């Protein structure tokens, strides 16, 4: 399966980023070469474990420095520094709760990291706002992906044509209701349980081959999509190619989509294709104890432990077949 999103790229020349890159080197080299001295400097107990962590942090700093200086797009590396700062704060936090020998020094180090964190965050946000960063450009956002389903194209088309069943595999969709005249109303559950609806019209419908749609002019969401059904070689079924385009005048497409759906459209599209295939091939969305709702990108980060659900949890995710 593939899924790709397209965004413009440009190499911003940012003095703050370069400063942060140099800072990474200045910190990383002594962390790797003299972890014991660095441990004592920040007042942490100097043992094998803290030296290992210090070296790990040093390696990460060097990687961020190299990244910021060599990459055409330093933005990602600045964000990597933000992530690194978060890790450092966690490490220092745990040191403050136990391993520190000189709390004043550890607190001072924590203060310094908070300062770096602020600088990194500011620069990351600044770079992300510049043209070429995700989430801010005015050009439409396009995501596309493909998956092979071991079913005849006519059968796959028939399922894809039944748009009221879309919510069975498009996890973010609450409801699709046919309103007549080739139009339908699509509803997603937005933030704070508020539903957002918009109207969609079918613009092209070639049986067994393709379906295209777009939102009706003046809708809250300006988007369009095409799904193509192509016979896979040697009787392996049907290649389903899905393309989605979103446009929001005034920019911030990805940010808006993330706010609306809880994640980037590319991630959603990957979920949707896998769920679509599962329903077509096995009859339903496959559930596990770790992912009781089935394939869902946002579940990746907060897996349940792999043991059976309680009655309450079960009621929360619904039981039985989802289609």
């Amino acid at each position, binding site marked *: *399966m593939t899924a790709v999103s397209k965004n413009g790229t440009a190499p911003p020349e940012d003095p703050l980023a370069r400063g942060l890159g140099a800072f990474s080197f200045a910190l990383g080299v002594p962390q790797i070469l003299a972890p014991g001295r660095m441990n004592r400097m920040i007042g942490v107990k100097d043992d094998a474990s803290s030296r*290992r962590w210090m*070296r*790990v942090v040093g390696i990460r700093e060097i990687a961020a420095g190299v990244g910021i200086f060599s990459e055409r797009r330093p933005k990602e590396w600045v964000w990597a520094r933000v992530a690194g700062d978060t890790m450092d704060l966690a490490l220092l936090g745990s040191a403050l709760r136990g391993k520190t020998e000189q709390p004043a020094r550890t607190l001072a180090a924590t203060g310094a990291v908070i300062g770096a964190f602020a600088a990194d965050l500011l620069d990351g946000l600044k770079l992300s706002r510049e043209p070429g960063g995700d989430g801010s450009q005015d050009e439409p956002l396009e995501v596309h992906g493909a998956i*092979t389903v*071991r079913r005849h194209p006519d059968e796959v088309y028939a399922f894809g044509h039944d748009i009221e069943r879309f919510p069975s595999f498009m996890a973010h969709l609450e409801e699709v209701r046919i309103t007549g005249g080739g139009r339908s109303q699509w509803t997603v559950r937005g933030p704070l349980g508020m539903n957002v609806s918009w109207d969609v019209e079918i613009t092209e419908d070639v049986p067994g081959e393709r379906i295209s749609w777009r939102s009706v002019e003046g809708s809250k969401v300006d988007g369009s999509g095409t799904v193509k059904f192509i016979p896979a070689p040697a009787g*392996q*079924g049907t290649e389903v190619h899905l393309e989605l385009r979103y446009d929001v005048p005034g920019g911030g497409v990805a940010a808006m989509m993330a706010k609306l759906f809880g994640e980037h459209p590319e*991630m959603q599209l*990957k*979920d949707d294709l*896998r769920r679509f*295939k*599962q329903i077509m*091939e*096995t*009859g*339903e*969305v*496959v*559930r*596990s*104890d*770790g*992912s*009781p709702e*089935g*394939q*869902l*990108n946002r*579940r*990746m980060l907060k*897996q*349940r*432990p*792999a*043991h*059976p*659900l*309680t*009655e309450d949890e*079960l009621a929360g995710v619904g*039981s*039985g*077949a989802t289609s």
Partner: protein
Amino acid sequence: MRANVWSGRNKVQVENVPDPKILNSRDAIVKITSTAICGSDLHLYDGYIPTMRKGDILGHEFMGEVVETGREVSNLKVGDRVVVPFPIACGACNACERELFSLCENSNPNALMAEKMFGDATAGIFGYSHLTGGFAGGQAEYARVPFADVGPIKIEGDFADEQVLFLSDIFPTGWMGAEMCDIKRGDIIAVWGCGSVGQFAIASAYLLGAERVIAIDRFDYRLRMAREKGGAEIINYEQTDVREALREMTGGRGPDACIDAVGMEAHHHHPAMYAYDRVKQAARLETERGYALREAIYNCRNGGIISMIGVYGGFMDKFPIGAVMNRGLTIKTGQCHVQRYLRPLLDRVENGDIDPSFVVTHKLALDDAPTGYETFKNKRDECVKVVLKP
């Protein structure tokens, strides 16, 4: 119910958890009568497989009695005695159609996690991290078995659990290891690792027509089992130079095919060599200690086959790719496609070709699982295989 859960590195404990329920219409619930600790469970126990969570129920080798079926399961009924294969497979995707069941395209709800790690997803596996789906395992009183209409095999003959339990993993895994060697008349097969998978690889290589099988390990009691139960010639690599011995035993040719039944936590007789990978592994600079695989590659006959059934999780350093390329070796590998082998191997058991219970050294109550893990990990008390009884 009682279940053995992972609680962090080197720690498992038997806890009370909710009973499993039907989540999909092709599920069955099985009341477990026997379940085993696998060598690959030790990789989880030792903390080398990422994406484990505290509270995960371990275990992917189990059998028992069907106590409930989902509405789409018509081949099984309550009371049936079944062995459950460790990979979960839908039976309907292109991978299943090609009998590549451990690569089922639908059974892993965390496919995107596996895609990030490996480039593409693999099938769901019971009790084997969240990378393979986050499914509760079978070291418990009950288990939910998805796609019960595809995986489990009914046992109708009058066999003890220990005679059929290992159809769930280690017997088919050893068999596939031997099958991948593409054994022809006169072939000599070398097997690294005499744990239970290695023992079944040895037995399977003979059943598939090998002329001779040479077993390599460092524990005398495991080598003794390989010789006495499997009929293998043996090399203890702590006492004998493996390369010289193999050349000598094969008239200078090298083994026609080499089976790696060790995987990511191999050992080396030389402390400095062992330290090299052990340190990198501890610092998480690589995930594998690949001594067995490297040695298999160096010693294989020109143009021969390397059959890898030991488990690897990520990245290995110093992989001798030059030897593979220049000497025209073929590497074959994969998690076992157990569903493919269930029927033919049950036939072998029914025919009396093999009695798989020979690997069992320990039978414990489920509540003693933590002791079982420690005994198995540290090779105490001549341990080869631990079976737990819920």
